[in-house]
């Protein structure tokens, strides 16, 4: 079967039909790594994958619903495109059971992408669900950053880095939870540093709170 794709060089978010939106669990939000428009996900795992990639500083850019492949008379739309250290990946998210019926299509796409710089990846729902807490924490941080675009924190970021040099602190040491408004600059600076990979937050197991550990990235 012949596979075609019109826009392999320029991934962009393909619009979701309204009829399809009503049939699935549809999620929309703003992301820092996809700032052009609202990102759209068609299931909870796609949405959680945004959070995982937002928390990964090696991922520079992502596009949900990036391509439309024509396969014979049928079409296929992968779930996500992302770029990590210059490498480009096209991702399909399904449950383990779901991938059993996906082998034929997957082989066709992999074959089609072989001569290109793109790589086709399978990510299972189960593996995403294992990192759900991390993903949700990062989505919260991203939402804070998206709504703090007007705030300049260059100097505060330097101060935060100074305090972290040689010390492992907690979020509560940097952000005063009793006076959030006064320490808002510290909070945004900390999140920006974490987002760029200069600072590491312990977000794997617990929700982001004042006791979350903070340390400099090695």
């Amino acid at each position, binding site marked *: 079967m012949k596979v075609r794709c019109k826009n392999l060089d320029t991934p962009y978010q393909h619009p979701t039909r*309204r009829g399809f*939106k*009503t*049939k*699935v*669990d*549809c*999620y*929309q*939000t*703003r992301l820092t790594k996809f700032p052009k428009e*609202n990102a759209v996900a068609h*299931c*909870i*795992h796609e*949405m959680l994958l945004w959070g995982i990639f937002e928390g990964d500083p090696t991922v520079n850019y992502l596009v949900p619903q990036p391509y439309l492949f024509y396969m014979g008379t049928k079409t296929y739309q992968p779930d996500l495109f992302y770029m990590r250290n210059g490498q480009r990946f096209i991702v399909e998210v399904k*449950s*383990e*059971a*779901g991938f059993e019926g996906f082998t034929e299509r997957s082989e066709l796409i992999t074959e089609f992408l072989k001569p290109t710089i793109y790589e086709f990846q399978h990510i*299972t*729902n*189960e593996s995403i*669900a294992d990192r*759900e807490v991390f993903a*949700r924490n990062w*989505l*919260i941080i991203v*939402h*804070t950053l*998206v*709504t*703090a*675009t*007007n*705030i300049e924190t260059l100097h505060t970021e330097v101060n935060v880095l100074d305090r972290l040099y040689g010390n492992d602190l907690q*979020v509560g040491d940097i*952000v005063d*939870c*009793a006076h*959030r*408004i006064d320490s*808002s600059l510290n*909070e*945004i600076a900390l999140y920006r540093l974490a987002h760029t990979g200069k600072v590491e937050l312990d977000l794997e197991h617990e*929700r*982001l*709170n*004042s006791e979350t550990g903070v340390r400099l990235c090695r």
Partner: protein
Amino acid sequence: MSINWKQRYAENPHLDNEALWQVDISSLPVRKRKTTQRNQNICYDMRHGGVGRIVAENYGVTPQQVTYVMQRVFSVDENGEFFLSRGLITGDRLKKPKRNAPLSTKAKPTNAKCCLGAVCEALPDWLNELFQLVLADERRDPYALNLTPQCFWQLALAGLKARDWPLDTWPFSHDTKGYSTFRRLLIKLRNQIAKERSNLRKTLEGIHRKDLATMPFDEVQIDWQVCDEICRLTTECEGDVVDTRLERCCLLVAFCVKTRCVLAWHLALTRNPNHADILQVIDNIFRQRKRTIRVTPELEHFPGADYPVSVIPEMHMIGINTISMDNAWANMARAVCDKACDIGALIRFGKGNTPLDRNFVESVFYYINGLTHRQANTTGSHPNDPIKEAPKNAKKPPVVSIQSFQELLDVWISKYNADISFHNMAESPLQRLEQYYRTQPIRLSHNFRHQKRDLFISEHRAKIYAPKKELRRPEIHHQKLVYRGSDLTDRDLAGTEVKFRRDRRDIRSIEVFTLKGQYLGKLHVQRAYLEYPLSETTYLRVKAFVKKYGTKSQNPVIAYLRHHFLNRESTRSQLEFLRVSEELKGQKTLFLNDADEATQEKETEFVERRVTNVPSIRELMKQKNYGEDLCY
């Protein structure tokens, strides 16, 4: 003769083992803990030789209750095992209800308790057949029947007859032939199928959805329902005061899952809310306050009843993590998505037919319906129910004005936020919210610290238009409206792309900026729409009205309003009239002319035609041969 519990206890010495009598009280619901603990103590005392009367006195119960507890714990289940500690938990049904008496017949009518269970036991294939019918209907199989309650009932009776069920036994022994019972069975079977489907879906998706709302505003659920209220509109026309029934309105509610707090509500004066109503309820989350009671005498708010703005000073900066809504088209409007994402929220549109994913907001509607809904009929409120409450028993609910209704709603909903409930850590929702706000890092949107949050203001791009032939000021066209003003007079700007800011609640003016953000000026709409503050929704409806009916009036808005005022018989028109007049009046008094110019013209034409068609009296008298002289 039933066996005494003491006899059973004596015959089974292994029951002395205390491990068999332990109950994990902490795992029980809070409301059951106290009584279960008491039952456990009573049981312990009685087993260790206590006297029933004295034990009853010690625990403040009657001796009969002590006997009941003991008999209950020493009862046996279907497998022949004693209930023991299971019997100590109060309120739990131990045995499935079963009919022991013979079924009711025409010759010997008895009550119909547990009759259906007895029939199902006797005819298991009949129940299976009914289940298959419902399953086919739920799957929408091509051969499926449209299973209304009445249809299901008739099929069930036909199935019984086909199996030679005696025609003098239940359900044929009763006049109603068990209609209500079969209607309930249909609902039960549907629920059973829905539950199985839901479990299957969760299994296929790989994980079960967990409630991850660990913080206030982690998940805010928004939904609406049509209120079953009876409101009136009082109008005065030429001295006659007329009360007209209004159509039912929609109530939109925003609810915080973690704190069980109603964040905001909005009464949309329409049956079909649109994106503006959804935006309004989201906007209300950040600014909803108690209403001042003005219209309803002797009504006042309950002590402590209020909204989150009263306990969180930085409410305008609060960030919502997830907004859950259903997949209605109004919710999925681009305006709603854009604005909700702008405030840093994740929007979730639930899959169709899964209202249980937003069960919390549904529970609020259940609470609100205590105020607004009429009592359900004995046969339920399904529209296809053939049997209704007799007219003599039907109660007419009181008719109130829309202002009174809004005040009542405000009092009732704000009371919800002040009610202390055990499932909410014995705190009221507002207390809990305040507690979280003081101790936990709730997300804040820092952009809104100095900038006003307004969901109704939107930015657009347009080109400046200045026709060469007509030497008028340059203008901006948007939604077939023309904006001009003294701030924009340079005709050389023609063709330049600019961006402008517009308020959806008042489309009369826009603020124009260059693409780099430099302020150019304020432009105003054409004169026809300039008089009253007009929302985008109303403008679009007025435009559709003018397109359909046409108007020669100077002011199409007033023509639209007059059209709805004259259609007083239609409840929908009355509601629209009320909505538009509330929107327009602001500080002014509205004045509706006697008639539209176009209408006047039409009426004159009609009168002239009538005069020409009817022959004059003189001609009539000539035809009847009365003579010309008699005419005078």
